[in-house]
């Protein structure tokens, strides 16, 4: 016998709030992307807990697709950060936006 589902949901909520805080408060594009990763992972924890509660594999299948989306998002996001860094010389979100406005889309 493991814990009730509510405890798993509380853990997932905590992780999600931490990731949200990281994405909102840090002034660095890499840390913002890291916060998004934490949030996706927290959603995965909730899905696996729900899959155990209702004995359905649906939840686990969704976690697989969350993994695929996380990998996609990170590869494109990191490439974009690298492009912004090459153009503006920093990974600060504001200077990055300023550099993109100045240069326009390639």
């Amino acid at each position: 016998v493991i814990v009730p589902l509510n405890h798993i949901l509380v853990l997932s909520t905590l992780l999600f709030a931490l990731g949200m805080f990281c994405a909102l408060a840090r002034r660095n594009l890499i840390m913002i992307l890291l916060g998004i990763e934490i949030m996706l992972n927290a959603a995965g924890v909730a899905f696996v807990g729900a899959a155990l509660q209702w004995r359905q594999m649906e939840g686990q299948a969704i976690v697989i697709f969350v993994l695929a989306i996380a990998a996609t998002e990170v590869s494109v996001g990191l490439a974009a950060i690298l492009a912004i860094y090459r153009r503006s010389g920093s990974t600060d979100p504001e200077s990055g936006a300023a550099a993109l406005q100045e240069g326009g889309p390639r």
Partner: protein
Amino acid sequence: MSILSILFYAIAVLITASTAMAVTRRNMVHAVLYLVLSFFGTAMLFYLLGAPFLAALEIIIYAGAIMVLFLFLIMMIRMNKPPGEEFSLNQLLPALLISAGFMVGSMVLVGGNAMGRKALQAAQASPETFGIYLFQTHWITVEIASLLLLVALVGAYLLGRKVRRPSIQEREDMP
């Protein structure tokens, strides 16, 4: 309190503590390493909750591939100046408010969930049954995910290739 629930609480404390450490680190390499620890904890949690295949994938993809990609980027980007203030106050306050508000709201929702008060019975979905289920029921989603990965590959290449135009730093270097 059974051994499994003790294990759950231990893992939960490990995950939360290491994620909190990762969120507050100033050095990004340290943050990524703490996050690797957190993902290992999540993998243990997935195994405990009856998803051994997802536990393996969590280690291979999250802790292995994604975090190593982050480390690559951090090492490619040289921070020429140490960032002065990591948390500016007029950004910290709204962030704290929003995440605390989210937490309170969802705690209220979870507290009202009477269905989730009963302790769960341990069960396992073996990788074999899970794979058969995935490819029989969700085969079209798997195809869409593969298409998505292909698009990401092309997009990352397009964004990451060398710019022919001189960058700002080179322009400054020019007389």
